[in-house]
């Protein structure tokens, strides 16, 4: 029987990694991700998880150790946040380019300076183009479920890519939530052993990450792009299988009360739950509003996204990161690009809010919705609106 327990979400991630039978964990502690790897270190030290735990001197080394581990065909896990993710940056490209399956949970955190340990999506957006599959989660159950799905996706023979599972720092990583854990046998059935097809082995030597002159580099990059885009079909299939096996369903773009909605809010991560409570309130007042939540960030689910917003008049995008000197929040920028060629599309309004752990309260979302509607009707001189900054 699956059991429901109250548990800190970071600890629950550790438990999920244990149930997923990870072989190697290489990690460096950084707030607000520390409890994840701390719990895993305990599980390994206590003999509850038969894995190699590699303590390293930095996140750059953590990701580098993960490359080596994944290259041998070991089931590989790490976790990081904020500055740690940025320190991994160059190695992230290597992991995806060499097609090495691994899973990393990222407890999303703001970037220095000023120093902030609190949550926003600045760290994610800076690694947007690293070629990893990226999944956003809203609550503890979704993180746990998607750790299982992420291993399955990463190790699928048609995918063979690293996967990031994003959970908001503190707002999600440090809260205690009721979480249902599946039985080990259920996880084992859903997640067969990793069978990486070209592992490092002395009997059959291979060269990974070798030199490519201009005559072959573009072919290598295009192969990577085609593969990442094609992974969406596998992700859909695996989420569907997970839904059938465990009764919880995930999709690349998730809609809440969007039927007949004229105004849509687009959110990512745990703040979506606050947004949904605001939608409940506004629906109670008879207003035709809904929320679209982007769960799959990479590969970007173009079709599903266009389908989800096509009937709306106004789409208000709430970014938790700032693209300095750019067209607005990074998510909104992509959303505008995805809709540009569409004949029928909503007016898109860009908000940047919730930086460095600043809450967006229900009242805040209501203000964003009202102001967004006003901007979509009257227009604005600004590329985007910054919300909640004292003027």
């Amino acid at each position, binding site marked *: 029987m699956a059991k429901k327990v109250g548990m800190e979400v970071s600890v629950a991630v550790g438990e999920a990694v244990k149930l997923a039978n990870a072989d190697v964990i290489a990690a460096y502690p950084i707030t607000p991700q520390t409890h994840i790897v701390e719990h895993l270190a305990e599980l390994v030290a206590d003999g509850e998880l038969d894995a190699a735990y590699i303590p390293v001197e930095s996140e750059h080394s953590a990701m580098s150790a993960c490359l080596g581990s994944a290259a041998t065909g070991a089931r590989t896990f790490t976790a990081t946040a904020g500055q740690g993710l940025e320190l991994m940056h160059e190695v992230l490209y290597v992991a995806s380019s060499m*097609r090495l399956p691994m899973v990393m949970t990222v407890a999303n955190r703001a970037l220095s300076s000023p120093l902030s340990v609190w949550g926003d999506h600045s760290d994610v957006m800076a690694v947007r183009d690293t070629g990893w599959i990226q999944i956003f989660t809203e609550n503890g159950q979704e993180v746990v479920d998607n750790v299982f799905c992420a291993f399955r996706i990463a190790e699928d023979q048609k995918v*063979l890519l690293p996967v990031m599972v994003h959970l908001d720092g503190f707002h999600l990583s440090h809260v205690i939530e009721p979480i249902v854990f599946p039985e080990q046998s259920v996880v084992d059935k859903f997640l067969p052993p990793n069978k990486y097809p070209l592992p490092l082995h002395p009997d059959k030597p291979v060269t990974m990450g070798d030199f490519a002159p201009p005559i072959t580099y573009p072919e290598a990059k295009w192969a990577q792009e085609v593969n990442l885009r094609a992974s969406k079909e596998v992700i859909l299939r695996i989420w569907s299988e997970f839904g059938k096996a465990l009764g919880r369903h995930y999709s690349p773009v998730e809609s809440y009360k969007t039927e007949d909605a004229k105004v849509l809010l687009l959110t990512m991560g745990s703040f979506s739950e606050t947004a949904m409570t605001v939608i409940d309130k506004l629906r109670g007042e008879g207003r035709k509003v809904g929320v679209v939540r982007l769960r799959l960030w990479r590969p970007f689910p173009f079709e599903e996204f266009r389908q989800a917003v096509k009937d709306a008049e106004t789409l208000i995008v709430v970014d938790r990161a700032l693209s300095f000197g750019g067209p607005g929040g990074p998510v909104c920028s992509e959303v505008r690009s995805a809709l540009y060629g569409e004949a029928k599309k909503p007016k898109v309004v860009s908000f940047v809010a919730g930086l460095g752990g600043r809450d967006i309260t229900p009242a805040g979302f209501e203000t964003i919705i009202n102001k967004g509607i006003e901007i979509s009707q009257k227009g604005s001189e600004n590329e985007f609106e910054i919300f909640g900054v004292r003027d």
Partner: protein
Amino acid sequence: MTKPEGELTWKDLEIGAIVTEPGNAAQYKTGDWRSQRPTYDFTKCIECGLCQIYCPEGCIWQNEDGYFEADMFYCKGCGICARECPTRVITMVVEEE
């Protein structure tokens, strides 16, 4: 390699562009980089082998007559052999000449 590099399509590459043929870097013609090539006056050669020791490409070998000569498939034309040769056997000439 099954095909010359210039004919490989993106579909021909292994996952992650992994190389499954050990040592196939030997098939890479670094001689293409050359703008100058070494020429030899073996009448001056004392067969000391200094050119071989200094060659950064490791592509200088003794020929059948015992003289040292660069393998032009790999020679990048750096000219270090010519500079180090104590008896001035080697003269670098522009590749087109």
